[in-house]
Every structure is written in C-alpha cells, then in structure tokens.
C-alpha cells in the first residue's frame, strides 16, 4: 500500500475513459491508484491503460453489467486502505495538483467530511466560479439537483455546506468507503440523494469544495452508449427506486420489493429528521421547509444576492426561489 489516493472509475462503452484516467494520474501530483471497471465491447481502445502501473483494471462484457451503480461498487471493491478516496466518471479532466487542492479543502473542515459537487462543464468552465448543486424539484427518486455555480467570493476560499452528493465527483478519507459502502443494487436514479442521506446520517458532512478540481463532460458524445441503451434495465431501475423509497420513508412505489437494506440503509449517528431540519428538504412531505439551518449557515458565509450565482446554461439554471425562498414543493 503505497498510494495516497484510491480513485475509482467505471466506464460503459466510453472511450473517453482513456484520456480521463491519464488526466487523473498526470495531474494528481501525488501517488494515486486507479481502479477502472470497464464495461467495454472493444478492449483494444483501453489496452494502453492496462500497462499503467497505477491502474488496476477489470474489463467485462457490457452484457454482464448490471448498470452504473453496480459497476461503481465493483470499482470501489478494489480499495486497499489508502488514506483518501476519489470517485469520478469516465469523461472528466483534472486540474494540476488536484490532490493537494482537495486535501487543503478537507483540512479546513471536520475530518468526517466529503467533498462533492457537480463539476463545471468541460470546455465551459468559469474562471470566477466553483461548481455547486441546487435541489430544484421532487422526483420519484428523491430531490433532483441541478448543477450550477457560485461566484468564488461566496466560498471565501473555504468549502461551503452541501445538501447533495454527486456520483461523478466525491472525495473523502478512505474510511468513508468502509462506513458507507456502495449499494450494488441501486441502478441510477436515486443513487445520489440516497447516498447523501446515508453519509449524513452516519455522521459525514457534505461540502462543495472552493477549488477547481476537475471538469465533467455533460451530455453524450456520439460514440458513447449507456447501459440503458443496450440492456433490459427496467427491473434494476424499479428495484433501485424501491430501495431509495425505503430510505426516505416513502411508501413502496411498485411491485418490485426493496429487499432488506442492511448496511446500505441510513446510519444512526444523525436522523433523517435532523437532515430535514438542517437542509430544509422535507423528504417525507416532498416540500421545502422555511428557514432551515443550512440557509442560516449560508447567510453567515455570505450576504446572498442574485449575481452570486453564475450559470452558463439555462437548463442548469438554479431556481433561486427553491434555494433562497421557502416555497411549497411541487411534484
């Protein structure tokens, strides 16, 4: 065990995994080990990764895959007690010395903290803004978050408290992986918010880092397919939604039973109600609660005004009413 950081990447027929992994390693400025879970038809594309000493790679046929969360859980199973963990997507680029930048952010908050966000869009990064997540609607899989950004002055150089967790960019001390192991039975929808709740109720705080760490390629490129393009995914999706409904305390949504949650359920250090009160997200009632603790914390960080939000893409524009003003939830 010599690496300082364990990074996990799952890729589904996505050749962009090759430059992603190179970018991750080349810009780390620290010893990293990268676990790559490839669900690829064409092995030749990724042959170059196999010979990298920093890479532990598994390639399976896409037809054997159970989907995104399942593949992530397998990549994460290769963890070997490294001090830090990072999980990211297979279509990302990293800034130089990203490890040092993240460690510096983690040093500013309590040790049981996760740095996470929707990274800024590749090719559309803003010099004066950092990525953040904005809950904006209630779905059948939990609150949906939009990616957006705050101006850097909101952060003042420090992480700001987050109410969501991102599957394409999460960083934490390695112990997190043992305490909040990935549920392989999840599919895609519901993964992120249920993970936020599981982490938070186990005593892990969530933060958006005040640093430009990486960029994410949103949308699809022509040569990439997704698990749901090639496979019968209906059952796994319904299983996933049944499991997250159980976590939220919602009635079961359909015929597929959630099954036991075990270690993939909520923690006992803090309750779901604690989270609701803190975040202003009334999960059981699917609405926003006025004046949550989170809002007070944010007010203490910065005097809010509209021009603190930076949005490059109207589709990802955060609804500031949802963020700043208590409004009734809409379904």
């Amino acid at each position: 065990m010599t690496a300082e950081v364990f990074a996990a990447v799952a890729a589904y027929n996505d050749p962009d995994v090759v430059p992603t992994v190179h970018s991750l390693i080349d810009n780390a400025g620290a010893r990293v080990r990268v676990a790559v879970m490839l669900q690829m038809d064409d092995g030749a594309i990724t042959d170059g990764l196999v010979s990298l000493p920093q890479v532990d790679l598994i390639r399976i046929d896409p037809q054997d895959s159970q989907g995104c969360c399942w593949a992530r859980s397998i990549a994460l199973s290769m963890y070997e007690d490294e001090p830090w963990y990072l999980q990211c997507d297979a279509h990302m680029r990293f800034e130089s010395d990203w490890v040092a930048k993240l460690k510096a952010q983690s040093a500013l908050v309590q040790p049981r903290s996760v740095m996470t966000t929707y990274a800024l869009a590749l090719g559309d990064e803003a010099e004066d803004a950092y990525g953040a997540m904005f809950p904006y609607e209630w779905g059948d899989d939990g609150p949906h978050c939009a990616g957006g950004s705050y101006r850097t002055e909101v952060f003042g150089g420090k992480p700001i408290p987050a109410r969501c967790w991102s599957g394409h960019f999460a960083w934490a001390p390695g112990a997190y992986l043992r305490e909040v192991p990935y549920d392989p039975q999840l599919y895609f929808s519901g993964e992120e918010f249920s993970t936020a709740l599981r982490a938070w109720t186990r005593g892990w705080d969530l933060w958006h880092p005040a640093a430009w760490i990486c960029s994410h390629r949103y949308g699809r490129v022509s040569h990439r397919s997704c698990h749901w393009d090639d496979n019968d995914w209906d059952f796994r999706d319904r299983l996933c939604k049944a499991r997250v409904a159980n976590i939220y305390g919602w009635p079961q949504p359909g015929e597929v039973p959630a099954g036991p949650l075990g270690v993939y359920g909520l923690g006992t250090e803090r309750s779901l109600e604690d989270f609701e009160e803190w975040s202003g997200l009334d999960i059981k009632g699917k609405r926003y609660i006025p004046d949550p603790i989170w809002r007070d914390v944010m007010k203490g960080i910065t005097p809010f005004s509209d021009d603190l939000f930076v949005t490059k893409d109207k589709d990802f524009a955060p609804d500031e009413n949802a963020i700043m003003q208590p409004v009734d939830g809409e379904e």
Partner: protein
Amino acid sequence: MKTSIFASVVAYEDPDVWETVTSLIGQAMDPIRVAIVLQGDDYEQTARDMRELPNTHVLRIPRKAARGVGWARHLAQTYYEGEEFYYQTDSHANFHDEWDVALIDMMDSIGKPTVISTYPRSRECYKPDEVTVIEPTFFGDAGLMGRCQDYPGDTFGYEMIPARLIGGGHLFAPGSFVVDVPHDPQMYFAGEEFAMTLRAWTHGYHLAHPRKTVCCHLYDIEHRRRQHWDDHADWGERDARSKERVAMLTGWPRKMSLHTLGAYGLGKKRTLRSYEDYAGVRIKAKEFTDDPTWRTLDVDAIAHRTEAMK
C-alpha cells in the same frame, strides 16, 4: 420469475466449476438465480456456456486482476436482488437432488434467522446418516480454526444443530445476510470464516450445521488445484491485511494502521462476549472454557452425543 434462492459460486482457475454450477442448477427443485465469478484466463468458453444456463450472471475476471476468494464472494453478492435466501458454495461441489427444498425445510424448522453451514464431505466419505460439525480446535493468527467431526445423525435430538464456526464452502442463510453481513472485499482467505462467524453472531444470526447432507465436496484427487497465491506474488500483503482485520474484530494486538471496519465490523445485536460464552472460548486470551452455552441448548441431545463420541 422471482426465485427464492440467490446462489453464489466463485472459482479460481478451477475446471470443476462447470460441474458444480450445472449440478447446483440441475438438482434444485425450483429455479434459482446464480451469480458465478470466474477468476482465471481459461474461462472464455465456460463463461459463454454458463450464460446460456437459466438465471445465471457470469462475471469473468482475468487472472491478473484476480484478488482472491473473499473479494470474489463480495463480487458475487453484488448480483443479489432481495431474494428470500442466500446460498454460497465453492467451485468444486456436487449437489443432491432437491437440495434447495432440504435447506429451506431446515431453515423453516429452525424458525429464526440462522446461518446454516459446514465443511461438506467428499463423495467418497459421505454417509447419509451422519452430520458434519465444525469442531473448534485451536486459535491461529487468522482466528479460531476448526476441523470436521462427523456424528451420527440422531446425535442431535432437537431441531437445530448449533454451530460455533461458519464454513464458507457450503452456507445457507436468509437473504438479509447478504446486506447485513456482506463479504468484506479486502478479506483474502485465512480469517474469512472466523470473521464471518463473529459478524454473523453479533448481527443477531443464529449459527447451525445442516441436519441433512445436501452436497459433496469434490476434492482434488488427481492434481492440486491452482490457487490465487500460486500466481500472485503480492498475496502475502493481502493475507496480512486480512489477518489484521481479524485482529480489529477480536481486539488482538495490531500490526498495521488500517481504517475502520465500518460496515464490515461487528454488529450491535449481540456482544462478542456472548459469542465467547456460547462457543466456549476466550478470544483475547485465545483459550477454551469448559462450560459453553451451546451445549446446554438440549441437554438430552448432549448426553446422547457424548455417548456417541465414546
């Protein structure tokens, strides 16, 4: 269709896995769902053939990427989808007709969440009227170790044959076991069964041996099977980390500074001390005691058993 048993089979360069899986599926009375993890470089055709079997999931891992049996069992469990029961076997076993019904009947007659396991006997040694108990014998650096001991089937007059150790090669449990006590992907080989025993017990599971034999182990008679440690020079490091995990569970002196066990640690439903009293051991001191409580579960049966041992 919804199956009630989810089964896990993991293999490392073992040609007998085909016979094992076809026997497992063929001898079951009802359809089961099986996850098969094949670690090795000679499995391309086997994987293709296995995908054609009903309700199978095949995960083929090249030899170079293989990380041992504990990790493979963790991978197999990722295919679990909420089935009522979990079954786990080695890659070299042979099943008796309607083994699934026999195991479900055993679970029903016990009537509480129980891990039913043992070390199955070989075809040659198998006697249908005997039951195989894992008898704890000594403490090693990977935990409490046991060996097989056969008893006449009528030794145990009550519904449950209490076990003090879990055997990983033949294990039947409620499906919840997969998510309550999931395989720690960083366990290598030695220590896996003792760690599972302590975790299962403290998570509130009862431990039993099967009253009826439903499978035979295929021992490698003609040649020694290839093992993960034959091909991986770094296995010693994995082994050391596994043993360290056992030390984290048992409170033995630590050699490394590993992270918390987290979800792979002890449960909160029972204490380690209650296991010690039950199994008749003192883990920290690595000692055996004279008055384990498992014996007192049925006094008549114990008397009978003592006779049988003479």
